[in-house]
C-alpha cells in the first residue's frame, strides 16, 4: 500500500515547522493529510512518539531500560491509570467529563480493605473486588443522576464528587492505612499468567472490552451519537439521559476496578490512592485522540496515550532525573500532541466548500 511510505514520511515531516507553510504542493500533501485524519493515521503519530521514547530510553539507559523485566514494569505502571482512562474515554466521547475518578478509586480501595470486608472475604477473596466495583458504580450512578436528571454540568457535579469522595474515604479510614491481609487476594494478584502480571492482563481485558463496547455495540453508537450531537440523538429516539447515567456508572466501575488493582500493588488501602489520577487519565485520553468536545473516541489511542506517559516516567526514572523535570516534559508532550491533532483535524474540516 502506498500509505506505508507516506507513514514513514509523515513521521519525519510532522515535527518540522515547514508543515505550517501553506499547502502549495496540494496534490502531494493531500493523501498524506487524508491518511492523518483517518483513525489509523491519528494513532500513527502516537506510535512514532512511543517508538522515539523507546529509542531514547535504550540509548540513555541501555539494558536497564531495554529489558523484558523493565517493559513489564512499564506495563504494570500503566495498568491502573489505563483502566481509569478507558472509563473516562467513554464519558469524554459522549461530550462529558469525569473529574471524580481518582477520588472514587481511593474511596473504593478504602471500602474494599475495611477490616469487616476483609474478614467477610477471608473465605472468598473476590468479594473484595466486588465491593470495590460496587463502590465505583454507586459513585458513578450518583454522578450520572445528578448530571442527567439534576441537570448540573458534568464538570461541577464530578468536581463535587472529587471532593466528597476523598473526604468520605478519609472519614471511613480515619486517615489510617489499611493493610491488606487477605492471603487469597494477595496470592492471586501477585501471581501471573505466562509471565505477565494479572494486573496487566486486567488492563488488557478492560481495553479490549472497552474497544468492543465502543465500536461494535449499540451502547458505543449511542455514546458517539450523544457526543456528536445530543439534540439529534434525542430527536432520533435515543434516551440521552439514561445513557448519560450509564456512562458515568461505567467510568465509576472502571475506577472501582482500578481501586482493586491499586490495593494489590500497594497491599494497602488509603484515602490518598489515586490522587490527581483524573488529570492523568484525561491527558492520556485527549492525547490519544479522543475529542474533548465529544463525538469521536478511540480506545486504542487512549491505551497508547497511557503507555506514552508510563514510558516517559520510566525513562526519567532510569536516568535518575527528578520527577519535577518529568512533569515539565509531560506538560510539553500534552500541548504538542493536542496541537498536532488539531492541525490535521482542522485542515480536513476546512476543505468542505
Amino acid at each position: 500500500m502506498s500509505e506505508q511510505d507516506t507513514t514513514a514520511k509523515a513521521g519525519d515531516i510532522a515535527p518540522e515547522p515547514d508543515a505550517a507553510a501553506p499547502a502549495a504542493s496540494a496534490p502531494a500533501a493531500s493523501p498524506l493529510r487524508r491518511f492523518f485524519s483517518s483513525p489509523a493515521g491519528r494513532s500513527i503519530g502516537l506510535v512514532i512518539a512511543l517508538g522515539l521514547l523507546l529509542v531514547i530510553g535504550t540509548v540513555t539507559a541501555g539494558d536497564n531500560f531495554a529489558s523484558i523485566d523493565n517493559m513489564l514494569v512499564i506495563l504494570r505502571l500503566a495498568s491502573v491509570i489505563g483502566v481509569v482512562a478507558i472509563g473516562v474515554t467513554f464519558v469524554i466521547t459522549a461530550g462529558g467529563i469525569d473529574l471524580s475518578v481518582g477520588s472514587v478509586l481511593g474511596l473504593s480501595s478504602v471500602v474494599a480493605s475495611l477490616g469487616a470486608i476483609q474478614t467477610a472475604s477471608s473465605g472468598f477473596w473476590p468479594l473484595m473486588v466486588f465491593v470495590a466495583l460496587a463502590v465505583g458504580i454507586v459513585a458513578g450512578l450518583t454522578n450520572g443522576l445528578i448530571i442527567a436528571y439534576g441537570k448540573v454540568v458534568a464538570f461541577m457535579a464530578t468536581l463535587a464528587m472529587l471532593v466528597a469522595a476523598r473526604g468520605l474515604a478519609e472519614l471511613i479510614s480515619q486517615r489510617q492505612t489499611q493493610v491488606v491481609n487477605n492471603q487469597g487476594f494477595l496470592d492471586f494478584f501477585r501471581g501471573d499468567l505466562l509471565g505477565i502480571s494479572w494486573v496487566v492482563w486486567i488492563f488488557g481485558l478492560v481495553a479490549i472490552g472497552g474497544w468492543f463496547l465502543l465500536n461494535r455495540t449499540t451502547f458505543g453508537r449511542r455514546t458517539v451519537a450523544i457526543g456528536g450531537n445530543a439534540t439529534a440523538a434525542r430527536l432520533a429516539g435515543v434516551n440521552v439521559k439514561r445513557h448519560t447515567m450509564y456512562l458515568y456508572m461505567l467510568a465509576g466501575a472502571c475506577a472501582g476496578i482500578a481501586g482493586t488493582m491499586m490495593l494489590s500493588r500497594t497491599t494497602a488501602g488509603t484515602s490518598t490512592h489515586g490522587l490527581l489520577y483524573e488529570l492523568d487519565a484525561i491527558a492520556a485520553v485527549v492525547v490519544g485522540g479522543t475529542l474533548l468536545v465529544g463525538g469521536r473516541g478511540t480506545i486504542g489511542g487512549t491505551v497508547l496515550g497511557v503507555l506514552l506517559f508510563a514510558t516517559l516516567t520510566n525513562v526519567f526514572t532510569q536516568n535518575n532525573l527528578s520527577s519535577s523535570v518529568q512533569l515539565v516534559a509531560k506538560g510539553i508532550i500534552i500541548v504538542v500532541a493536542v496541537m498536532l491533532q488539531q492541525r490535521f483535524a482542522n485542515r480536513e474540516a476546512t476543505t468542505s466548500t
Partner: protein
Amino acid sequence: MIEDDHPVSLLEVRGLTKSFGSARALKGVDLDVRAGEVHCVLGQNGAGKSTLIKTLSGAHQPDEGEIRWNGEQVTIENPVAALELGIATMYQELDVVDGLSIAENIYLGHELARGGVLSRREAAKRTRELMKRLGHPDLSPGREVGSLSPANQQIVSMARALSHDIKLMIMDEPSAVLDSEEVGNLFRVVEELTSQGIAVIYISHRLEEIERIGDRITVLKDGASQASNLPVEGTPTRELISLMTGTDIEHAFPERGEVSADAPVVLEVTDLALGKHFQDVSLSVRAGEIVGLAGLVGSGRSEILETVYGHRKATNGTVTVDGKRLRPGHVTDAVDAGVGLSPEERKSQGLLLEEPIYRNATLATFTRFAKGPLLDEAAERKATEEQMKALELRPAEPNRITRTLSGGNQQKIMLARWLIHGTRVLLLDEPTRGVDVGARMEIYRLIRNLADAGTAILIVSSEIEEVLGLADRIHVIADGRFLAERPATEIDEHGVLDLVMKGSAA
C-alpha cells in the same frame, strides 16, 4: 437603474479557479461589480458560491485568475486585507457575540481606544449614527446582542461592516433567518447602502427577492459562471432556473393525490398547549394526507411540531397516534409509535456531521438492525444504500462523511432516516431550508410520494407558498393560536396573510 457609462468596474474577477485537493470548487468564474449596484449571484448548492465569497473576502487564495479592484490587480491575502480594500462580508451564520453589547460587537477587533483604554462614549456615539443610517435608531448601543431578534442581530452584523470604510458588501443569504416583514427592512437597508455608492453582492436562493432588489445577475453552475452580468429586468425567471439547473421546470409542486374520506386518522392532537408559546391547538392528520401549518416566524409553528413530538413538554392537551396516547415530553414514545421529526435546524438538531451517512440514516433504527447489543453495520450500510438510490442521492456511498453533502442531500438523509424507520407520521419543519431550487422539487416529490404510500405528514415552512403548494389542508396560525382551517386549494398566499393580519388585530 445603473448607467452603462461607468468607466471601470469596482470589482472585476476573471477566470478564477480554486481546488481543494482533487475537488475543483471553482473552474473559471467571471464577475463584474459596479459601484452602487446590487449584483446577485445565483447557483445551486455546491455551485461554488461559498468558495467565491471566501476567495473575495480573503479566507481562501485562488489558484489562478485575477481580481481587479478599481482597475488595479490585487491579491487579497486575508480577511483583514479585504476589509482594508473596502470589502466586507456578512456570512450566512450570524457572526455576532451574544454576550457583548451592540457597540462592543460593532467595534470588535478594531476597538476605539486611547492608550489601551476603551473610549466607550465615542463608540456609543458612532454606533448610534450607524444604527440611524441603517434605519434602526431604536437599538441602543448598550443593549446585549443576545437579547435581539435574528433580524436585529443581522443589522448589528451589517453595522459592523459599515464601521469600516467599505465600498463592497457581500451578503450570503441574508434573508434566510428573516420573515417577510424583516426582509422588507433588509431591502430598505440595501437600498440605503447602494444610494451611498456602496456595491452589494447578494446571494440568495429566493428568485423573487432577486427580482425585487437586484440590478444584475451572475449565475454559477458547477464552479463556473454560466452567465455573467445579466440585467434583472428582461431576464425571465424561467431562464434563470434553466441556467441554474440546466433543465426547464414546469411544475414546482407535484400533483395532489386523493385522500379518501375513510382513510383512518393517524395523528390526533387535542387542546395542546405549551406555556405562552401556543394554546388550544387541535388538529388531525389522516393516513396519506399532508397537513400544513401556515404562519409567520414567531407564530409558534416549530414549537407546535416539537411539542407534538415530545421534544418540548406540553403543559396541556393530548397527542395520540393510532389511538395510542403519547406521554408529554417523551420523544422515545413518539419514535416507538412511528412518529419522525425532521427538525428545523438540520445541522444542530438533526445530523451527526462528522459521522458517515449511514450512521445518520440509521440513527433512529440502529438498535433494530443490531443483534442484541451487537451492531450490524453491514446491514445498516445496505439499507442506507438502498434508500440513497431510491432518493436519487448520488453517489450512493454510505461511508461518506455527512458534512461534505449539500443542504439538499443532507435533507434527504433526514428523510432516509425516517423512511428506514418506517414512520406512520412524519413531522417536517422547514424541509427545504438551505436547499437549492433543483433539489427542492425532488424533495417535494418525495414528500408527496410518502403521503401517497400512506404516511400522515404535518409540515411547517416559512415560505407560505410551499405550504400551500404541498399540503392538502392547512391551518393558519398567528401568535400561537389556530385561526382557520382550509383546503389548500381554496386559499392563496394573500388569503393567509389577510387572516394572519386580522387575527392578530382582533
